[in-house]
């Protein structure tokens, strides 16, 4: 589909250094879910303008859902370098922690670790991670850690395209949705955001986590549901 081809051409044309995250992913769990993570960085800068130290790379198919532990994932947004680094650090800390404690870590622990880093270096970093997963004490949980706060929510959205879908998610969210309804809800939200936001597009990544484990899925652009505008 066009978006896909365009992404490939863009990858060839533009250079390296900073990764600009442009596609959307979503993330679901049993009952709670996380909604699309879309980039907060501005759209690609044309090569004619010379910006001192920021180059951009456009990758419309980057997987922004990174694994913190077997049943805990986080969704990245903002500066890709910052977000990926935080995710790597917390992945390491959770590995050590889960072995010391002798059981799978709680989602709250993962979120607190992310929050501690985000808060301590809030002046230097520019990334927002949404942490979500499943643990045996609290079931499915979603935590936001924007700017170093920590808050548990039934669902969360983040990134540049999120502002277009706040109304949709507030209206359409239901408590205790089934897994399939949840996944459909997330995909719908993503599709709406991707069509309206200039910085978003490409493919949608979906991760569903329950007590059996995590299941990753990638939905191509042409398989996403279409709405009024499309």
């Amino acid at each position, binding site marked *: 589909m066009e978006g896909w081809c365009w992404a490939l051409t863009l990858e060839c044309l533009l250079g390296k250094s900073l990764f600009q995250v442009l596609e959307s992913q979503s993330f679901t769990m049993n009952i709670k879910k996380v909604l699309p993570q879309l980039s907060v960085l501005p759209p690609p800068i044309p090569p004619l303008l010379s910006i001192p130290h920021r180059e951009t790379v456009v990758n419309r198919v980057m997987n922004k859902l990174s694994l913190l532990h077997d049943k805990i994932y986080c969704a990245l947004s903002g500066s890709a370098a910052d977000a990926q680094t935080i995710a790597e650090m917390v992945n390491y800390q959770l590995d050590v922690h889960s072995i*010391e*404690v002798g059981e799978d870590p*709680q989602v*709250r*622990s993962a*979120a*607190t*670790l992310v929050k501690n880093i985000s808060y301590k270096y809030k002046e230097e970093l520019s990334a927002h991670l949404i942490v979500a997963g499943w643990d045996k004490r609290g079931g499915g949980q979603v935590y936001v850690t924007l700017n170093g706060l920590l808050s548990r929510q039934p669902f969360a959205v983040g990134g540049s395209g999120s502002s277009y879908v706040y109304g949709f998610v507030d209206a359409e969210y239901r408590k205790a949705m089934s897994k399939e309804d949840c996944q459909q809800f997330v995909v719908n939200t993503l599709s709406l955001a991707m069509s309206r936001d200039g910085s978003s597009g490409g493919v949608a990544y979906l991760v569903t986590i329950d007590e059996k484990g995590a299941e990753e899925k990638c939905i191509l652009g042409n398989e996403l549901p279409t709405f009024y505008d499309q």
Partner: protein
Amino acid sequence: MTSYDLSASTFSPDGRVFQVEYAMKAVENSSTAIGIRCKDGVVFGVEKLVLSKLYEQGSNKRIFNVDRHVGMAVAGLLADARSLSEVAREEASNFRSNYGHNIPLKYLSERVAMYVHAYTLYSAVRPFGCSFIFGSYDQDDGPQLYMVDPSGISFGYWGCAIGKAKQAAKTEIEKLQMKDMTCRELVKEVAKIIYIVHDEVKDKAFELELSWVGEVTNGKHELVPKDIRVEAEKYAKASFPSSVAGEEGNCSGIST
């Protein structure tokens, strides 16, 4: 035997570290403390010997609060125990700050045991001369009971005793069916065991310190309320008449 026991950094020819064994002797010189885990909580009882009538009631507490949901009963050198309770408190506090939830008791007792063990490795320091019993209650994990001794090992228990009468106390504890008891029933049994193992001849007066943590306290570790303690002591004194007669006046409860 000579010269192998001068420092903790020396083994004896038969593979013992004498300094650590001497530290355990220090614990055995102290009065008894017991901890028992039941169906819905943990109860601690300490036989606190009163060395002088001039002491204020309730001074020299031997049960500490480590975190909201964790209690610690000690036997041995009280000063060593106090500084270790600070270590335990710091561990619990750092864990909460880093990971956002209550520290699991197994992990806390392993961390404190690691700290105690470190002092058994070098000649420049002496081992800690105290043992402790940690107890906690959590909605998901239920009641937990762990003991740490001066050698730096920690084990989980359903019931344990430390101090001079630990053998006698262990025998009494083994008679109990603690897995089927609730905290309220157990409090009375703990008081009774302390009264049983208290040696009337060698040690005259003692105060009974009782604390618990469980469903009955909503997961918060606290000293047993005065009325329940008084009732428990009454049950304890009634359960074994004999040689307590005439010494009644010396056995007083602590003020909460």
